């Protein structure tokens, strides 16, 4: 990587030190073992095939916080760059641009401790969403956490500030769900935060003596491993209907049964986005709902792809028949109502909801009264079904005004022939969005679906220039919409170049740099992060940054606030 020091390969002494920490069987420098750590997950086609991703020089599997701290100290002593990873949902958090680093695979750190009475759970780095809910839901408790897939680390996903389906009533903000945190700093010191300051077994509270430094963990966006390793986190749990949710069905059609008297899915079709927005607003005022999702049209066709035919064949057989008029004229709101306190609560919420739906002309659709993809599965892999790859051009927390502007921008883009030649045609749909904090905040995702094979230079189907156009859409065109609307993307450092956009967002990279320098003087904690995307765009996709975007950033940076004339 340009401008970045590349260290020597891992010295033999350092390997011996690592072996003495975790044991011989949990350290490897073998090329075969290391080859398996080039990075999968979201954005693999961009990260891996562009040449960003490299195999590490060594892999180590610690089991305890103490081992992690000793490994990190060893890395500092020998100036070995290290990259931590828990469940590997993001290709981008992984190895990149260099082949001299140590990969700290945290999968052995998979323990959890549940305090039912005080309603919190302490999780190690590798405990995933489904595992956590497997334990908590047996006890009538639910986490209010980001859901990036059932197999995704709860802790790591919280550090990225991911969004969750269950956050509608409580809060989107990850740090408000945390209690005590155990953190190994980039230099290998163990910090215990929150109530752990007073008692190392007290995980109950986020605040401790002195200032709350848990913001170091991410701020509005994650560090991509550049700021040490969080090894344990305690997160709050909330009561939900007390019955256990029993599984049933086979793997392409599995689900959990919902208690009929406590939970109910209702799908409603509206004829315009405006009616959906008004419904969301009134639901928030009335204080009803548990999961509230504005569902894109093609999700229905993904959900209907069940059977033994290949999913792509099933999906396209169904989606291929949908007309633009049909898709754009049908806006579906999918709502889960939960009577957390009683059956009467569910009945009350349903009555209120149906009143609102009636007022805005909604039509109730059939809904299966089971849950397939919220409590355990959080089935983000469904998103790969249509084309084998999907790209989140941007995701963010925003006002309804931003959601609207982003949707309009997206719909304009999707009518361009170049876009339609490269990506799945969404047929006039609006991006997926959700309401949070009872309508105080909205969250949306702009998606673009290229054919995975066409994005792959190693495939006969490779389409020349497609990765460049994909990146131009993500970085410059979606980026322009985001910047102009004042959207604060929590993926800023993951799918867009931080430094490029930073001037439009109060130059927050200066703040990041100061912390990084202070806490990681040897620059060994995932070096390159949180600016790896900047480097990738600069070196591999320079044409992704258009002059128009640069002008927009300059204009917005000049104020007023985020270019919002109303502010």
């Amino acid at each position, binding site marked *: 990587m340009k401008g970045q020091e590349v260290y020597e390969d891992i010295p033999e002494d350092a390997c011996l030190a690592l072996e003495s920490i975790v044991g011989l069987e949990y350290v490897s420098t*073998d090329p*075969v*073992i290391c*080859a*398996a*750590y080039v*990075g*999968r*997950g979201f954005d*693999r086609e961009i990260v891996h095939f562009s040449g960003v991703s490299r195999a590490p020089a060594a*892999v180590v*599997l610690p089991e305890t916080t103490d081992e992690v701290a000793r490994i990190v100290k060893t890395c500092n002593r020998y100036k070995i760059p290290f990259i931590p990873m828990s469940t*590997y949902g993001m290709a981008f958090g992984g190895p990149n641009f260099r082949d001299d680093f140590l990969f700290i*695979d945290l999968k*052995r750190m*998979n323990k*959890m401790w549940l305090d039912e009475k005080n309603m919190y759970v302490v999780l190690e780095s590798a405990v*995933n969403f*489904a*595992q956590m*809910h*497997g*334990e908590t839901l*047996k006890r009538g408790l639910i986490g209010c956490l980001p859901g990036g*897939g*059932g*197999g995704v680390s709860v802790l790591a996903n919280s550090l990225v500030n991911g969004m969750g389906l269950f956050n509608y009533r409580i809060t989107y903000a990850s740090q408000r769900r945390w209690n005590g945190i155990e953190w190994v700093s980039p230099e290998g010191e163990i910090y215990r935060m929150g109530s752990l300051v007073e008692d190392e077994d007290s995980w109950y509270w986020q605040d401790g003596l002195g200032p709350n430094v848990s913001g170091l963990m991410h701020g509005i966006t994650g560090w991509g491993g550049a700021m040490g390793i969080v090894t344990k986190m305690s997160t709050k749990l909330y009561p939900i209907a007390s019955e256990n949710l029993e*599984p049933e*069905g*086979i*793997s*392409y059609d*599995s*689900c959990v049964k919902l208690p009929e008297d406590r939970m109910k899915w209702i799908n409603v079709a509206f004829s315009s986005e405006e009616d959906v927005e008004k419904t969301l607003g009134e639901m928030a005022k009335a204080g009803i709902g548990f999961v509230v999702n504005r569902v894109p049209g093609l999700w229905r066709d993904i959900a209907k792809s069940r059977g*033994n*035919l*290949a*999913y*792509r*064949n099933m999906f*396209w057989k169904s989606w291929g028949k949908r007309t633009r008029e049909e898709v754009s004229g049908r806006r579906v709101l999918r709502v889960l109502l939960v009577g957390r306190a009683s059956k009467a609560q569910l009945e009350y919420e349903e009555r209120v909801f149906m009143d609102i739906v009636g007022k805005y002309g909604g039509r109730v659709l059939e809904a299966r009264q089971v849950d397939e993809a919220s*409590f*355990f*599965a*959080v089935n983000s*892999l*469904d998103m*790969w079904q249509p*084309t*084998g*790859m999907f790209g989140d051009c941007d995701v963010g927390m925003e006002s309804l005004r931003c959601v609207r502007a982003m949707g309009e921008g997206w719909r304009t883009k999707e009518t361009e022939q170049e876009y339609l030649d490269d990506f*799945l045609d969404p047929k006039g749909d609006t991006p997926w969005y959700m309401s949070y904090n009872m309508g105080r905040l909205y969250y949306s995702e702009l998606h673009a679906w290229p*054919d*995975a*094979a066409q994005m*792959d230079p*190693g*495939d*006969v*189907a490779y389409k020349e220039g497609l990765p460049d156009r994909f990146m131009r859409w993500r970085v410059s065109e979606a980026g322009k919409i985001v910047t102009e609307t004042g959207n604060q993307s929590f993926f800023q450092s993951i799918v867009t170049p931080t430094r490029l956009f930073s001037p439009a967002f109060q130059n927050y990279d200066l703040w990041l740099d100061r912390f990084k320098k202070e806490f990681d003087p040897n620059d060994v904690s995932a070096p390159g992060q949180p600016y790896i995307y900047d480097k990738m765009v600069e070196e591999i996709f320079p044409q992704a940054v258009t002059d128009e975007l640069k002008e927009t950033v300059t204009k917005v940076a000049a104020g007023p606030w985020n270019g919002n004339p109303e502010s």
Partner: protein
Amino acid sequence: MADEKLELGLDLENYRYDARHYPAQGHARWIDYNYIRGVDFSSRCPPWQYEGFDAYGVAGKCDIVDHLLSGNLDYSSPTLREVVYKDPMCGSCDVAGKRDLDFELQLMLEALRVRMVEKGNGPMPEHLPVTENIEKTGNRFGRKQSERSNWLPKDIKPSTKADVLYFVGCRASLNDTKISQSSARVLAAADVPFMLMENEPCCGHFIYLTGQLTKAKKIATENLKLIWQTEAKTVVFNCAECYKTIKVDYPKILGLATEELGFEVKHITELADVWIKEGKLNLANPIDLKITYHDPCNLGRLSEPWQPWKGLRKQWGIFDPPRTLRRGVNGVYEPPRNILRAIRGVKLVEMIRHHENAWCDGNDAGVNEAFPEFAAWAASERLREASLTGAEAIISCCPGCKEALLNTSQNNLQVYDITEVLAKSIA
């Protein structure tokens, strides 16, 4: 821009797309998310859980295959051989790869083993004695073939000519004769005339799954000829390994569809389930036992019929002609459970991981021979899971599984093959 020509089979080149685009590192580590009930018993991959390093899981193997096909890794690596062969080839990752996706992970792993043998770095040295036994003596134990029919009880008289051929398999013929004897009693009780092969050969399961394709083809060709000579309409098995090998692997190796074999392939549980419903089997004897059932991989997720496919992967990944996938969810899951439920006194309880999510006992595909400690660990994990159901006994439908579970130390459960329980319950 071109469509990609593909053919299902054992050429590793056909799985380049699968190796490069399988999206998620962790997805194939876990059972179906809706069935997860905590950290314990949430894993679906024995070698991945045992070893820890991603190379031992299928996502890591995808990376390794990608590196091999690109020439960035050398086939001669001893570590590569260990990674490839420390794997019971249980098909569990394949179920994950087809949960919401269209990936052929099991075929990729089988093709990888074939490639390893072609490149001279497979099978493992520990696999050679068994291979030699099968080639020289016709059974995996190197015993005399003349001993093969010693299991037959005197009171049971097979027919010299019948529509049903009972293929006994090496283990039930020579080692665990309780299973063969029980199976024969079930057939007799149902009043179904059956014949035996005069000099029944080994099915070659071990040889195929260790990647020795040339030898496996020879065995498959010869064995099919022998079966065809019997003119059997149905071949019935008590061994899940033999059952799957002849139902799935023979056609795969020889370019046929299962339905083109010229005979029906049935596991004895499929037939017994029907016979019970038809009243042909009278399960008069109660068995007072709390039982949990262990799905053999070869009877469950790996046993769906083989259907050759050749065609194009077109834009968006659409297959032309359209392809049906062997998802691992349509195997033989219910017949054994139906049988157990039909026996008076039996209380059937499920483990957390069951049906297509079942945990493999880790002993197949040469693992027991080359990596006995790992194999024993996988089986002990299964028994630990079984014990937590409160069951007194664990039942399976494969002599290989029974052997694996019985040989595990610290086992406080009774271990039976389903034919033993069924035979006891028959009046």
